[in-house]
Protein backbone atom coordinates (compact mmCIF):
# COMPACT_ATOMS: atom_id res chain seq x y z
CA UNK A 1 0.00 0.00 0.00
CA UNK A 2 2.48 2.51 1.18
CA UNK A 3 4.84 1.83 -1.64
CA UNK A 4 2.21 2.21 -4.32
CA UNK A 5 0.86 5.40 -2.80
CA UNK A 6 4.22 7.07 -2.55
CA UNK A 7 5.29 6.51 -6.13
CA UNK A 8 6.99 9.79 -7.01
CA UNK A 9 6.15 9.70 -10.69
CA UNK A 10 2.46 9.09 -10.02
CA UNK A 11 2.34 11.90 -7.48
CA UNK A 12 3.91 14.21 -9.99
CA UNK A 13 1.46 13.22 -12.70
CA UNK A 14 -1.50 13.83 -10.42
CA UNK A 15 -0.41 17.10 -8.92
CA UNK A 16 1.71 18.83 -11.55
CA UNK A 17 -0.87 19.81 -14.18
CA UNK A 18 -2.96 21.69 -11.61
CA UNK A 19 0.09 23.07 -9.89
CA UNK A 20 1.61 24.34 -13.14
CA UNK A 21 -1.58 26.11 -14.09
CA UNK A 22 -1.89 28.01 -10.85
CA UNK A 23 1.86 28.50 -10.71
CA UNK A 24 1.86 30.29 -14.02
CA UNK A 25 -1.50 31.99 -14.05
CA UNK A 26 -1.86 32.89 -10.39
CA UNK A 27 1.59 33.02 -8.82
CA UNK A 28 3.29 35.03 -11.54
CA UNK A 29 0.58 37.73 -11.46
CA UNK A 30 0.80 37.60 -7.69
CA UNK A 31 4.54 38.18 -7.73
CA UNK A 32 4.12 40.95 -10.30
CA UNK A 33 1.48 42.60 -8.11
CA UNK A 34 3.89 42.64 -5.23
CA UNK A 35 6.56 43.99 -7.54
CA UNK A 36 4.38 46.76 -9.00
CA UNK A 37 3.61 47.67 -5.42
CA UNK A 38 7.23 48.76 -5.11
CA UNK A 39 6.86 51.15 -8.02
CA UNK A 40 5.54 54.59 -8.69
CA UNK A 41 3.49 53.76 -11.77
CA UNK A 42 0.28 55.13 -13.23
CA UNK A 43 -0.10 51.96 -15.28
CA UNK A 44 0.83 53.71 -18.49
CA UNK A 45 4.16 55.46 -18.60
CA UNK A 46 7.55 54.81 -17.06
CA UNK A 47 7.90 53.09 -13.72
CA UNK A 48 10.15 54.42 -11.03
CA UNK A 49 11.33 52.31 -8.14
CA UNK A 50 10.07 53.50 -4.77
CA UNK A 51 10.95 50.65 -2.46
CA UNK A 52 8.48 50.10 0.33
CA UNK A 53 7.00 53.58 0.18
CA UNK A 54 3.62 52.46 -1.19
CA UNK A 55 3.31 49.84 1.52
CA UNK A 56 4.20 52.33 4.21
CA UNK A 57 1.70 54.82 2.81
CA UNK A 58 -0.97 52.12 2.85
CA UNK A 59 -0.25 51.25 6.47
CA UNK A 60 -0.75 54.91 7.39
CA UNK A 61 -3.76 55.31 5.11
CA UNK A 62 -6.93 55.57 7.20
CA UNK A 63 -9.08 54.97 4.14
CA UNK A 64 -7.36 51.64 3.64
CA UNK A 65 -7.93 50.60 7.24
CA UNK A 66 -11.56 51.72 7.09
CA UNK A 67 -12.04 49.53 4.04
CA UNK A 68 -10.21 46.67 5.80
CA UNK A 69 -12.52 47.09 8.78
CA UNK A 70 -15.56 46.85 6.50
CA UNK A 71 -14.12 43.74 4.86
CA UNK A 72 -13.59 42.18 8.28
CA UNK A 73 -17.18 42.92 9.27
CA UNK A 74 -18.29 41.23 6.08
CA UNK A 75 -16.10 38.23 6.87
CA UNK A 76 -17.56 37.86 10.36
CA UNK A 77 -21.05 38.30 9.04
CA UNK A 78 -20.51 35.71 6.31
CA UNK A 79 -19.06 33.22 8.77
CA UNK A 80 -22.01 33.62 11.11
CA UNK A 81 -24.46 33.18 8.27
CA UNK A 82 -22.92 29.75 7.65
CA UNK A 83 -24.94 28.55 10.66
CA UNK A 84 -28.15 29.53 8.90
CA UNK A 85 -27.08 27.78 5.73
CA UNK A 86 -26.09 24.68 7.67
CA UNK A 87 -29.43 24.66 9.47
CA UNK A 88 -31.34 24.85 6.21
CA UNK A 89 -29.18 22.15 4.66
CA UNK A 90 -29.78 19.87 7.67
CA UNK A 91 -33.54 20.30 7.32
CA UNK A 92 -33.44 19.72 3.59
CA UNK A 93 -31.26 16.64 3.89
CA UNK A 94 -33.44 15.03 6.54
CA UNK A 95 -35.79 13.47 4.02
CA UNK A 96 -38.69 15.80 4.57
CA UNK A 97 -41.33 16.02 1.86
CA UNK A 98 -40.61 18.48 -0.92
CA UNK A 99 -36.97 18.82 0.07
CA UNK A 100 -35.82 18.19 -3.45
CA UNK A 101 -37.85 21.04 -4.91
CA UNK A 102 -37.09 23.44 -2.07
CA UNK A 103 -33.40 22.78 -2.39
CA UNK A 104 -33.47 23.72 -6.05
CA UNK A 105 -35.46 26.86 -5.39
CA UNK A 106 -33.05 27.94 -2.69
CA UNK A 107 -30.16 27.80 -5.09
CA UNK A 108 -31.71 30.01 -7.75
CA UNK A 109 -30.23 33.39 -6.69
CA UNK A 110 -26.78 31.93 -7.05
CA UNK A 111 -27.36 31.30 -10.76
CA UNK A 112 -27.76 34.97 -11.52
CA UNK A 113 -24.81 37.12 -12.38
CA UNK A 114 -23.81 39.86 -9.99
CA UNK A 115 -25.02 42.48 -12.47
CA UNK A 116 -28.54 41.10 -12.22
CA UNK A 117 -28.45 40.72 -8.45
CA UNK A 118 -27.14 44.23 -7.97
CA UNK A 119 -29.85 45.69 -10.19
CA UNK A 120 -32.49 43.75 -8.33
CA UNK A 121 -31.40 44.95 -4.91
CA UNK A 122 -30.92 48.52 -6.05
CA UNK A 123 -34.60 48.39 -6.90
CA UNK A 124 -35.50 46.77 -3.62
CA UNK A 125 -33.70 49.55 -1.75
CA UNK A 126 -34.77 52.50 -3.92
CA UNK A 127 -35.71 55.26 -1.47
CA UNK A 128 -38.99 56.28 -3.11
CA UNK A 129 -40.06 53.52 -5.50
CA UNK A 130 -38.36 50.52 -3.92
CA UNK A 131 -40.12 47.40 -2.71
CA UNK A 132 -38.81 47.65 0.82
CA UNK A 133 -39.82 51.23 1.49
CA UNK A 134 -43.19 50.69 -0.22
CA UNK A 135 -43.87 47.90 2.25
CA UNK A 136 -42.64 49.96 5.17
CA UNK A 137 -44.83 52.92 4.28
CA UNK A 138 -47.78 50.58 3.83
CA UNK A 139 -47.21 49.67 7.47
CA UNK A 140 -47.35 53.32 8.39
CA UNK A 141 -43.64 54.00 8.77
CA UNK A 142 -43.33 57.56 7.52
CA UNK A 143 -39.65 58.11 7.13
CA UNK A 144 -38.15 54.82 6.07
CA UNK A 145 -34.36 54.88 5.93
CA UNK A 146 -32.45 55.55 2.73
CA UNK A 147 -30.85 52.12 2.79
CA UNK A 148 -27.97 52.78 0.45
CA UNK A 149 -27.59 56.49 1.11
CA UNK A 150 -27.20 56.55 4.86
CA UNK A 151 -23.59 56.13 5.92
CA UNK A 152 -24.55 54.43 9.18
CA UNK A 153 -26.57 51.59 7.62
CA UNK A 154 -25.33 51.21 4.06
CA UNK A 155 -22.84 48.50 4.98
CA UNK A 156 -25.51 46.33 6.58
CA UNK A 157 -27.90 47.01 3.72
CA UNK A 158 -25.30 45.53 1.43
CA UNK A 159 -24.63 42.48 3.60
CA UNK A 160 -28.19 41.26 3.12
CA UNK A 161 -27.95 40.69 -0.63
CA UNK A 162 -24.55 39.04 -0.16
CA UNK A 163 -26.00 36.67 2.44
CA UNK A 164 -28.87 35.97 0.09
CA UNK A 165 -26.65 35.52 -2.95
CA UNK A 166 -24.39 32.96 -1.30
CA UNK A 167 -27.10 30.93 0.42
CA UNK A 168 -27.31 28.55 -2.53
CA UNK A 169 -23.57 28.02 -2.74
CA UNK A 170 -23.14 26.85 0.84
CA UNK A 171 -26.42 25.00 1.09
CA UNK A 172 -25.37 23.05 -1.99
CA UNK A 173 -22.03 22.09 -0.46
CA UNK A 174 -23.52 21.16 2.92
CA UNK A 175 -26.29 19.24 1.27
CA UNK A 176 -23.89 17.19 -0.81
CA UNK A 177 -21.80 16.50 2.28
CA UNK A 178 -24.81 15.43 4.32
CA UNK A 179 -26.04 13.19 1.54
CA UNK A 180 -22.63 11.58 1.51
CA UNK A 181 -23.08 10.26 5.04
CA UNK A 182 -23.90 6.56 4.82
CA UNK A 183 -27.49 5.78 5.72
CA UNK A 184 -26.33 2.88 7.87
CA UNK A 185 -24.87 5.29 10.45
CA UNK A 186 -28.13 7.23 10.74
CA UNK A 187 -30.20 4.08 10.92
CA UNK A 188 -28.02 2.70 13.68
CA UNK A 189 -28.50 5.90 15.68
CA UNK A 190 -32.24 5.77 15.16
CA UNK A 191 -32.35 2.25 16.46
CA UNK A 192 -30.46 3.44 19.52
CA UNK A 193 -33.31 5.91 20.07
CA UNK A 194 -31.61 9.17 19.09
CA UNK A 195 -33.92 12.13 18.34
CA UNK A 196 -33.69 13.95 14.99
CA UNK A 197 -31.95 16.88 16.69
CA UNK A 198 -29.44 14.58 18.33
CA UNK A 199 -28.79 12.88 15.02
CA UNK A 200 -28.27 16.24 13.39
CA UNK A 201 -25.87 17.73 15.92
CA UNK A 202 -24.22 14.69 17.46
CA UNK A 203 -23.73 12.66 14.32
CA UNK A 204 -24.22 14.59 11.10
CA UNK A 205 -22.46 17.84 11.98
CA UNK A 206 -19.35 16.19 13.42
CA UNK A 207 -19.18 13.93 10.39
CA UNK A 208 -19.10 16.83 7.95
CA UNK A 209 -16.79 18.93 10.11
CA UNK A 210 -14.07 18.75 7.47
CA UNK A 211 -16.41 20.28 4.95
CA UNK A 212 -17.58 22.92 7.42
CA UNK A 213 -14.01 23.97 8.05
CA UNK A 214 -13.44 24.33 4.33
CA UNK A 215 -16.53 26.51 4.01
CA UNK A 216 -15.32 28.72 6.85
CA UNK A 217 -12.11 29.32 4.96
CA UNK A 218 -14.00 29.93 1.73
CA UNK A 219 -16.37 32.37 3.43
CA UNK A 220 -13.57 34.34 5.04
CA UNK A 221 -11.32 34.47 2.00
CA UNK A 222 -14.25 35.26 -0.26
CA UNK A 223 -15.41 38.09 2.01
CA UNK A 224 -12.03 39.67 2.42
CA UNK A 225 -11.63 40.03 -1.34
CA UNK A 226 -15.31 40.67 -2.05
CA UNK A 227 -15.96 43.24 -4.75
CA UNK A 228 -18.80 42.72 -7.23
CA UNK A 229 -22.10 43.69 -5.63
CA UNK A 230 -20.63 46.44 -3.52
CA UNK A 231 -18.98 48.12 -6.46
CA UNK A 232 -22.14 48.07 -8.55
CA UNK A 233 -24.58 48.98 -5.80
CA UNK A 234 -22.79 51.82 -4.03
CA UNK A 235 -19.36 52.20 -5.62
CA UNK A 236 -18.05 52.09 -2.03
CA UNK A 237 -20.01 55.15 -1.05
CA UNK A 238 -21.55 57.26 0.22
CA UNK A 239 -18.36 58.86 1.50
CA UNK A 240 -16.54 55.54 1.69
CA UNK A 241 -19.05 54.06 4.13
CA UNK A 242 -19.24 50.81 2.18
CA UNK A 243 -15.71 50.76 0.80
CA UNK A 244 -14.03 47.37 1.09
CA UNK A 245 -10.40 46.48 0.42
CA UNK A 246 -10.98 45.20 -3.12
CA UNK A 247 -13.08 48.18 -4.19
CA UNK A 248 -10.53 50.57 -2.72
CA UNK A 249 -7.79 48.76 -4.58
CA UNK A 250 -9.74 48.87 -7.83
CA UNK A 251 -10.51 52.57 -7.53
CA UNK A 252 -6.92 53.42 -6.70
CA UNK A 253 -5.47 51.38 -9.54
CA UNK A 254 -8.05 51.98 -12.25
CA UNK A 255 -9.85 55.25 -11.45
CA UNK A 256 -7.09 57.26 -9.79
CA UNK A 257 -4.43 55.87 -12.13
CA UNK A 258 -2.23 55.01 -9.21
CA UNK A 259 -1.49 51.47 -10.27
CA UNK A 260 1.58 51.10 -8.09
CA UNK A 261 -0.29 52.01 -4.94
CA UNK A 262 -3.28 49.93 -6.02
CA UNK A 263 -0.99 46.92 -6.44
CA UNK A 264 0.44 47.49 -2.98
CA UNK A 265 -3.09 47.48 -1.57
CA UNK A 266 -3.88 44.32 -3.52
CA UNK A 267 -0.78 42.65 -2.14
CA UNK A 268 -1.58 43.74 1.42
CA UNK A 269 -5.10 42.38 0.95
CA UNK A 270 -3.54 39.06 0.10
CA UNK A 271 -1.19 39.14 3.08
CA UNK A 272 -4.01 40.00 5.46
CA UNK A 273 -6.15 37.21 4.06
CA UNK A 274 -3.24 34.83 4.38
CA UNK A 275 -2.67 35.66 8.04
CA UNK A 276 -6.35 35.42 8.90
CA UNK A 277 -6.69 32.09 7.11
CA UNK A 278 -3.60 30.74 8.82
CA UNK A 279 -4.97 31.71 12.23
CA UNK A 280 -8.37 30.18 11.45
CA UNK A 281 -6.76 26.95 10.27
CA UNK A 282 -4.59 26.78 13.35
CA UNK A 283 -7.57 27.49 15.55
CA UNK A 284 -9.68 24.74 14.01
CA UNK A 285 -7.02 22.21 13.13
CA UNK A 286 -7.81 19.80 15.96
CA UNK A 287 -9.30 16.51 14.89
CA UNK A 288 -9.04 16.64 11.13
CA UNK A 289 -9.64 13.62 8.95
CA UNK A 290 -12.78 11.97 10.13
CA UNK A 291 -13.69 8.80 8.34
CA UNK A 292 -16.91 6.92 8.18
Amino acid sequence: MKKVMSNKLMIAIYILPALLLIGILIYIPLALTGYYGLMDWDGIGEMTFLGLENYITAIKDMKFWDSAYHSFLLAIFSTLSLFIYLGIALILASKIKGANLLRKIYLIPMLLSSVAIAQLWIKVYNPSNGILNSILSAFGIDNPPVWLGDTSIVLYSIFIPILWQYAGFYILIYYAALKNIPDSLIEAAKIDGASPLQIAFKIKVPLIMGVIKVTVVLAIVGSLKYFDLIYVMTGGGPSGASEVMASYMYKTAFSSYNYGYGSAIGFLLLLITLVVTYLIRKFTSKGDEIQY
Partner: protein
Amino acid sequence: MKRIGYLILYASLGFVAIFQLFPIIWLVLFSLKDTREIFGSNPLALPQEWKWENYVKVWEGDVGVYFFNSVWYTAIAIILTVILASMAAFAITRMQWKLSSFVLGLFMVGLMIPVHSALIPLFKMFLSVDLIDKPLSIILTYTAYNLPITLMILLGFYYTLPREIEEAAIIDGCSINRLFFRITLPMTIPVMSTTVIINMIYNWNEFVFVNTFISSDKYKTLTVGIQNFIGQYMTDWGAIGATLVISVLPILLAFFFFSNKVVEGISASAVKG
Protein backbone atom coordinates in the same frame (compact mmCIF):
# COMPACT_ATOMS: atom_id res chain seq x y z
CA MET B 1 -47.61 19.15 18.75
CA LYS B 2 -45.52 17.50 16.11
CA ARG B 3 -47.96 18.65 13.47
CA ILE B 4 -47.68 22.29 14.55
CA GLY B 5 -43.95 21.95 14.47
CA TYR B 6 -44.09 20.77 10.88
CA LEU B 7 -46.48 23.56 10.01
CA ILE B 8 -44.09 26.17 11.31
CA LEU B 9 -41.19 24.44 9.60
CA TYR B 10 -42.93 24.38 6.24
CA ALA B 11 -44.21 27.92 6.63
CA SER B 12 -40.71 29.22 7.23
CA LEU B 13 -39.22 27.04 4.49
CA GLY B 14 -41.91 28.32 2.14
CA PHE B 15 -41.20 31.91 3.13
CA VAL B 16 -37.52 31.48 2.34
CA ALA B 17 -38.46 29.81 -0.94
CA ILE B 18 -40.54 32.82 -2.01
CA PHE B 19 -37.67 35.08 -1.10
CA GLN B 20 -35.31 33.01 -3.25
CA LEU B 21 -37.74 32.60 -6.11
CA PHE B 22 -38.68 36.21 -6.60
CA PRO B 23 -35.53 37.28 -8.49
CA ILE B 24 -36.52 35.08 -11.41
CA ILE B 25 -40.01 36.53 -11.48
CA TRP B 26 -38.59 40.01 -11.15
CA LEU B 27 -36.08 39.36 -13.91
CA VAL B 28 -38.76 38.21 -16.33
CA LEU B 29 -40.92 41.26 -15.59
CA PHE B 30 -37.86 43.48 -15.87
CA SER B 31 -37.08 42.09 -19.31
CA LEU B 32 -40.51 43.08 -20.57
CA LYS B 33 -40.43 46.73 -19.56
CA ASP B 34 -38.68 49.78 -20.95
CA THR B 35 -36.03 51.75 -19.09
CA ARG B 36 -38.48 54.41 -17.96
CA GLU B 37 -40.78 51.89 -16.37
CA ILE B 38 -37.99 49.80 -14.91
CA PHE B 39 -36.79 52.73 -12.88
CA GLY B 40 -40.13 54.42 -12.33
CA SER B 41 -42.42 51.70 -11.07
CA ASN B 42 -42.65 48.94 -8.53
CA PRO B 43 -40.27 46.17 -9.64
CA LEU B 44 -42.95 43.54 -9.16
CA ALA B 45 -45.70 45.38 -11.01
CA LEU B 46 -46.78 43.93 -14.34
CA PRO B 47 -45.53 45.88 -17.35
CA GLN B 48 -47.89 48.62 -18.55
CA GLU B 49 -47.01 47.60 -22.04
CA TRP B 50 -45.38 44.23 -22.68
CA LYS B 51 -42.15 44.99 -24.45
CA TRP B 52 -41.49 41.78 -26.34
CA GLU B 53 -39.33 43.81 -28.69
CA ASN B 54 -36.63 43.71 -26.03
CA TYR B 55 -36.14 40.07 -26.96
CA VAL B 56 -36.24 40.85 -30.64
CA LYS B 57 -33.51 43.44 -30.12
CA VAL B 58 -31.35 40.91 -28.31
CA TRP B 59 -31.81 38.26 -30.99
CA GLU B 60 -30.82 40.72 -33.68
CA GLY B 61 -27.39 41.00 -32.14
CA ASP B 62 -24.73 38.29 -32.25
CA VAL B 63 -26.38 36.29 -29.50
CA GLY B 64 -26.04 32.98 -31.33
CA VAL B 65 -22.26 33.27 -31.53
CA TYR B 66 -21.95 34.55 -27.98
CA PHE B 67 -24.13 31.73 -26.73
CA PHE B 68 -22.10 29.07 -28.49
CA ASN B 69 -18.87 30.53 -27.11
CA SER B 70 -20.26 30.68 -23.59
CA VAL B 71 -21.23 27.04 -23.82
CA TRP B 72 -17.95 25.66 -25.03
CA TYR B 73 -15.65 27.83 -22.93
CA THR B 74 -17.69 26.91 -19.89
CA ALA B 75 -17.81 23.21 -20.71
CA ILE B 76 -14.12 22.75 -21.45
CA ALA B 77 -13.04 24.81 -18.48
CA ILE B 78 -15.31 22.78 -16.20
CA ILE B 79 -13.96 19.46 -17.44
CA LEU B 80 -10.36 20.58 -17.06
CA THR B 81 -10.94 22.14 -13.66
CA VAL B 82 -12.85 19.27 -12.11
CA ILE B 83 -10.51 16.57 -13.42
CA LEU B 84 -7.32 18.40 -12.51
CA ALA B 85 -8.68 19.36 -9.10
CA SER B 86 -9.83 15.80 -8.42
CA MET B 87 -6.40 14.47 -9.32
CA ALA B 88 -4.76 17.02 -7.08
CA ALA B 89 -7.17 16.29 -4.24
CA PHE B 90 -6.44 12.60 -4.63
CA ALA B 91 -2.70 13.17 -4.56
CA ILE B 92 -2.91 15.45 -1.54
CA THR B 93 -5.23 13.33 0.57
CA ARG B 94 -4.32 9.84 -0.52
CA MET B 95 -0.73 9.67 -1.61
CA GLN B 96 2.14 9.90 0.80
CA TRP B 97 4.70 12.60 0.16
CA LYS B 98 6.45 15.17 2.23
CA LEU B 99 5.36 18.32 0.47
CA SER B 100 1.66 17.55 0.33
CA SER B 101 0.56 20.07 2.96
CA PHE B 102 2.86 22.70 1.49
CA VAL B 103 1.31 22.19 -1.94
CA LEU B 104 -2.13 22.39 -0.40
CA GLY B 105 -1.06 25.71 1.07
CA LEU B 106 -0.04 26.89 -2.39
CA PHE B 107 -3.50 26.14 -3.69
CA MET B 108 -5.11 27.94 -0.77
CA VAL B 109 -3.12 31.07 -1.41
CA GLY B 110 -4.43 30.87 -4.96
CA LEU B 111 -7.88 31.51 -3.51
CA MET B 112 -6.81 34.84 -2.15
CA ILE B 113 -5.68 36.83 -5.14
CA PRO B 114 -8.03 39.70 -6.02
CA VAL B 115 -8.98 39.27 -9.67
CA HIS B 116 -8.38 42.89 -10.60
CA SER B 117 -4.81 42.75 -9.37
CA ALA B 118 -4.13 39.93 -11.79
CA LEU B 119 -5.63 41.63 -14.80
CA ILE B 120 -2.70 43.66 -16.07
CA PRO B 121 -0.06 40.99 -15.30
CA LEU B 122 -2.15 38.33 -17.05
CA PHE B 123 -2.68 40.57 -20.04
CA LYS B 124 1.07 41.11 -20.35
CA MET B 125 1.74 37.39 -20.03
CA PHE B 126 -0.81 36.37 -22.64
CA LEU B 127 0.46 39.09 -24.91
CA SER B 128 3.98 37.72 -24.71
CA VAL B 129 2.85 34.24 -25.78
CA ASP B 130 0.41 35.60 -28.36
CA LEU B 131 -2.71 34.36 -26.62
CA ILE B 132 -4.53 37.68 -26.54
CA ASP B 133 -7.80 37.47 -28.41
CA LYS B 134 -7.62 33.66 -28.43
CA PRO B 135 -10.18 31.48 -26.63
CA LEU B 136 -7.37 29.49 -25.02
CA SER B 137 -6.49 32.45 -22.80
CA ILE B 138 -10.03 32.43 -21.43
CA ILE B 139 -10.17 28.69 -20.88
CA LEU B 140 -6.79 28.57 -19.16
CA THR B 141 -7.68 31.52 -16.93
CA TYR B 142 -11.05 30.07 -15.94
CA THR B 143 -9.43 26.74 -15.16
CA ALA B 144 -6.61 28.20 -13.11
CA TYR B 145 -8.78 30.65 -11.15
CA ASN B 146 -11.40 28.03 -10.31
CA LEU B 147 -8.91 25.29 -9.41
CA PRO B 148 -8.28 26.43 -5.83
CA ILE B 149 -11.94 26.71 -4.81
CA THR B 150 -12.80 23.44 -6.56
CA LEU B 151 -9.92 21.69 -4.86
CA MET B 152 -10.95 23.05 -1.47
CA ILE B 153 -14.51 21.80 -1.86
CA LEU B 154 -13.29 18.39 -3.03
CA LEU B 155 -10.82 18.10 -0.16
CA GLY B 156 -13.47 18.15 2.53
CA PHE B 157 -15.00 15.09 0.88
CA TYR B 158 -11.82 13.26 0.05
CA TYR B 159 -10.84 13.30 3.71
CA THR B 160 -14.01 11.41 4.54
CA LEU B 161 -13.68 8.71 1.90
CA PRO B 162 -13.21 5.29 3.47
CA ARG B 163 -9.64 4.08 3.12
CA GLU B 164 -10.47 0.41 3.49
CA ILE B 165 -11.75 0.17 -0.05
CA GLU B 166 -8.56 1.63 -1.46
CA GLU B 167 -6.42 -0.60 0.66
CA ALA B 168 -8.32 -3.62 -0.48
CA ALA B 169 -8.05 -2.53 -4.10
CA ILE B 170 -4.32 -1.96 -3.87
CA ILE B 171 -3.80 -5.31 -2.23
CA ASP B 172 -5.74 -6.86 -5.11
CA GLY B 173 -3.10 -5.36 -7.40
CA CYS B 174 -5.12 -2.44 -8.65
CA SER B 175 -3.07 0.36 -10.19
CA ILE B 176 -3.31 3.94 -8.98
CA ASN B 177 -4.97 5.11 -12.16
CA ARG B 178 -7.49 2.33 -11.98
CA LEU B 179 -8.12 3.08 -8.35
CA PHE B 180 -8.62 6.76 -9.08
CA PHE B 181 -10.76 6.51 -12.17
CA ARG B 182 -12.74 3.39 -11.32
CA ILE B 183 -13.19 3.65 -7.59
CA THR B 184 -12.46 7.09 -6.20
CA LEU B 185 -14.05 9.22 -8.92
CA PRO B 186 -17.36 7.33 -8.93
CA MET B 187 -17.52 7.65 -5.17
CA THR B 188 -17.19 11.39 -5.45
CA ILE B 189 -19.88 11.98 -8.05
CA PRO B 190 -22.07 13.98 -5.63
CA VAL B 191 -19.29 16.40 -4.77
CA MET B 192 -18.09 16.52 -8.36
CA SER B 193 -21.60 17.50 -9.39
CA THR B 194 -21.48 20.20 -6.76
CA THR B 195 -18.24 21.58 -8.11
CA VAL B 196 -19.52 21.31 -11.68
CA ILE B 197 -22.50 23.46 -10.73
CA ILE B 198 -20.30 26.02 -9.01
CA ASN B 199 -17.80 26.14 -11.86
CA MET B 200 -20.59 26.39 -14.35
CA ILE B 201 -22.10 29.40 -12.64
CA TYR B 202 -18.76 31.14 -12.25
CA ASN B 203 -17.64 30.59 -15.83
CA TRP B 204 -20.99 31.35 -17.35
CA ASN B 205 -21.32 34.69 -15.60
CA GLU B 206 -17.69 35.78 -15.83
CA PHE B 207 -16.98 38.90 -17.85
CA VAL B 208 -13.88 40.71 -16.60
CA PHE B 209 -11.47 38.27 -18.25
CA VAL B 210 -13.40 37.97 -21.51
CA ASN B 211 -13.72 41.71 -21.73
CA THR B 212 -10.01 42.20 -21.20
CA PHE B 213 -8.48 39.39 -23.24
CA ILE B 214 -10.91 39.12 -26.13
CA SER B 215 -11.47 41.77 -28.77
CA SER B 216 -13.00 39.91 -31.72
CA ASP B 217 -16.75 39.68 -31.73
CA LYS B 218 -16.65 36.04 -32.73
CA TYR B 219 -14.91 35.04 -29.50
CA LYS B 220 -17.03 37.05 -27.08
CA THR B 221 -19.50 35.48 -24.68
CA LEU B 222 -23.02 36.21 -23.53
CA THR B 223 -21.95 38.34 -20.61
CA VAL B 224 -20.21 40.85 -22.83
CA GLY B 225 -23.34 40.82 -25.01
CA ILE B 226 -24.91 42.85 -22.21
CA GLN B 227 -22.52 45.65 -22.98
CA ASN B 228 -24.14 46.09 -26.33
CA PHE B 229 -26.94 47.85 -24.47
CA ILE B 230 -24.83 50.10 -22.28
CA GLY B 231 -24.32 53.46 -23.90
CA GLN B 232 -22.29 56.52 -23.15
CA TYR B 233 -25.20 58.37 -21.58
CA MET B 234 -28.12 55.98 -21.99
CA THR B 235 -28.60 52.33 -21.22
CA ASP B 236 -31.31 50.09 -22.57
CA TRP B 237 -32.18 48.22 -19.39
CA GLY B 238 -35.10 46.35 -20.92
CA ALA B 239 -32.79 44.71 -23.45
CA ILE B 240 -30.28 43.94 -20.71
CA GLY B 241 -33.07 42.22 -18.83
CA ALA B 242 -33.91 40.17 -21.91
CA THR B 243 -30.24 39.21 -22.33
CA LEU B 244 -30.09 38.16 -18.69
CA VAL B 245 -33.20 36.01 -19.05
CA ILE B 246 -31.86 34.36 -22.18
CA SER B 247 -28.55 33.67 -20.51
CA VAL B 248 -30.01 32.32 -17.29
CA LEU B 249 -32.32 29.79 -18.94
CA PRO B 250 -29.72 27.27 -20.12
CA ILE B 251 -27.86 27.44 -16.86
CA LEU B 252 -31.10 26.91 -15.00
CA LEU B 253 -31.74 23.74 -17.00
CA ALA B 254 -28.19 22.49 -16.61
CA PHE B 255 -28.41 23.24 -12.93
CA PHE B 256 -31.53 21.15 -12.46
CA PHE B 257 -29.81 18.32 -14.28
CA PHE B 258 -26.63 18.37 -12.19
CA SER B 259 -28.54 19.14 -9.04
CA ASN B 260 -30.19 15.75 -9.33
CA LYS B 261 -26.76 14.18 -9.72
CA VAL B 262 -25.78 15.53 -6.33
CA VAL B 263 -28.29 13.11 -4.83
CA GLU B 264 -28.30 10.34 -7.39
CA GLY B 265 -24.57 9.92 -7.39
CA ILE B 266 -24.32 8.40 -3.98
CA SER B 267 -27.10 5.90 -4.46
CA ALA B 268 -25.76 4.96 -7.88
CA SER B 269 -22.26 4.24 -6.73
CA ALA B 270 -22.03 0.67 -5.62
CA VAL B 271 -19.39 1.37 -3.02
CA LYS B 272 -20.60 2.67 0.28
CA GLY B 273 -19.06 2.94 3.68
